[in-house]
């Protein structure tokens, strides 16, 4: 593992503080785009991406801030994108749900659950055909495994032995629907049906464990061992979409959250928080300032880049 614990911690904290800033700004309506915060899930995202090469590609979902920042996406341009400004990553046409940063391999984020699984599949085929040493990582939620296309992608990836790592971040919820009401299958056995190796990290907050497992799996995939499935258990601290907590709604227990948070290094490691916080606060303030100062896109942008 080439990234130190402190570096991973710093990255995860950076994401959390950036998202807390989004939550702070949100009531002003300066960000008019649905935001799906990853607060609580940043540690595993930072650890996973730390275990990859910068040139590996990543395809993910609308809960994309964490993956974007960890994969090297520019923070000022992310804030400008959320603000709908011309200097945004995609000139304000993407908003929060479709962040990308192709320079370091984040090739897209979709608001349609499971839509990016097959994009990762095609990318992995291209890498294999070209004999490239990079791998492709698909990062989606537990709900994506219920879509038929998940089966289609496991099948084709196994059939062609593609350099593709399916990471399933399992927070147990699809909006407000619990896993038990949605799934009659075991992900491990499903992967096994295709002969695809399966690994589980039960604690997404354990960054060394996630980075270690991800590094070993990525090395096998990179060596030509074919696709793998890697499940990471995590907990979503916030409501599905928006910037509030929703434990008062009765669909989940606040005690679950308390239990996760008690182990959350981003909440408990006061020493490392103190070490990095002021520097990160400055970076975030500068990013927000950049977004504030950037102009809105011109109206002719509406019909640009349609086809």
């Amino acid at each position, binding site marked *: 593992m080439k990234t130190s614990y402190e570096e991973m911690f710093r990255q995860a904290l950076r994401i959390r503080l950036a998202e807390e800033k989004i939550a702070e700004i949100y009531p002003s309506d300066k960000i008019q785009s649905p935001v799906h915060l990853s607060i609580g899930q940043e540690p595993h995202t930072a650890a996973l991406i730390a275990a990859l090469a910068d040139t590996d590609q990543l*395809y993910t979902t609308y809960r994309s801030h964490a993956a974007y920042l960890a994969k090297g996406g520019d923070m000022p341009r992310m804030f400008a994108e959320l603000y709908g400004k011309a200097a945004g990553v995609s000139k304000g046409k993407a908003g929060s749900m479709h962040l990308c940063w192709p320079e370091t391999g984040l*090739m897209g984020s979709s608001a349609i659950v499971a839509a990016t699984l097959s994009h990762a*599949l095609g990318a992995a085929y291209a890498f294999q055909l070209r004999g490239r040493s990079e791998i492709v990582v698909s990062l989606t939620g537990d709900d994506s495994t219920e879509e038929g296309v998940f089966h*289609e992608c496991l099948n084709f990836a196994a*059939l062609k032995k593609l350099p593709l790592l399916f990471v399933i971040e399992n927070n147990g919820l699809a909006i407000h629907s619990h896993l038990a009401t949605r799934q009659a299958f075991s992900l491990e056995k499903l992967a096994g049906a295709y002969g695809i190796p399966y690994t589980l990290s039960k604690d997404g907050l354990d960054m060394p464990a996630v980075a270690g497992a991800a590094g070993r799996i990525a090395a096998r995939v990179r060596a030509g061992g074919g696709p793998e499935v890697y499940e990471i258990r995590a907990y979503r601290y916030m409501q599905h979409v928006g910037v509030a907590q929703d434990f008062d709604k009765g669909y989940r227990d606040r005690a679950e959250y308390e239990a996760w948070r008690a182990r959350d290094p981003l909440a408990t490691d006061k020493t490392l928080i103190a070490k990095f916080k002021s520097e990160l606060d400055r970076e975030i303030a500068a990013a927000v300032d950049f977004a504030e100062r950037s102009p809105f896109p011109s109206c002719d942008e509406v019909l640009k880049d349609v*086809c």
Partner: protein
Amino acid sequence: MKTMTYREALAQAMRGALEKNPSAVVYGLGVTDFTGIFGTTLGLEKDFGPGRVFDTPLSEDAMTGFAVGAALNGIYPVHIHIRADFMLLAMNQLVNSIAKYKYMYGGLFELPLLIRAVIGRSWGQGAQHSQSLQALLSHVPGLTVVMPASAQSVLDTYEYAATKARFPVVSFEHRSLYDYSFNMDGLKPQPDPFTSRLVREGRDVTVAATSVMVADAVNAAKFLSERAGIEAEVIDLHCLTRLDSKMLLASLRKTGRLVVADAGWAPFGVCAEVSRLVATSDPGLLKAPIIEIAQAHSPCPTAKTLENHFYPDMGTVADAICRLAKGRKDHGVELPSAEYKKRLYKEFKGPF
């Protein structure tokens, strides 16, 4: 006379794409089997290898999204559906991903790719093996939809798509055209194949047509020229998402009469779109109401006797041209007989 069938043009275009674009990949269910998508992909796997030409599982959704990831990484994907109806399983990718990838990311990505979808017809193809879905996809901003109506059009369009185009193309190929032989004498490649083309000049009536209806319109026009001295102008609309409205209006300025003949359904379809273009541009050009020719607005029935009422043919087009040229329904012009039509068209024999 040098001739080429539509099928031969497709086979040449597929080989050409693989030869001229080293990044091209051709795939789809049945691409490598002994029938080779009605003979259009035969021998390609052997000549270009299983990495570039391959069969797929029945996974239209995944294999369409596959094209996105491949195209993002410099591959030129050509995905073939032996029936257009199967493409409906991939609507999420077509509409939510492919059509929006460039726009949604602010122009950071382009998706050059080609999806070939074959429209079945006749010999009992029925409700789910025969659909003409061009309007459905043309409605969505971001997709470029073509319906090559001749061998030359196939050659021009697919070569341009595979070597120059930087956008996603969905092409509907009509199965009825596959055995149709086209005169290639004096034809030159069209510099920009992604637009409409004037295929026959005439002074009396304009026929704007798509796909197999272009052949029907040309045959009807020739018949009426010889038998009744009526001269119809025929425009092959070809690229539905980039219709040449100038060409259409210039023709109407001359004829003042319009037949729209589409291989799909009329409501909300190509007939509706062409009528909209005229109504919103220069409705005063029309000397008579537009006549729409389309499939019956029902699913396609299987029984031959019903199917005959479902599909229009060259006789339907000839009748419409005469009604407009003569200004009345009982125009008195003799229409092409069943024997006449049989000589022109090789009857499709099923089951495949």
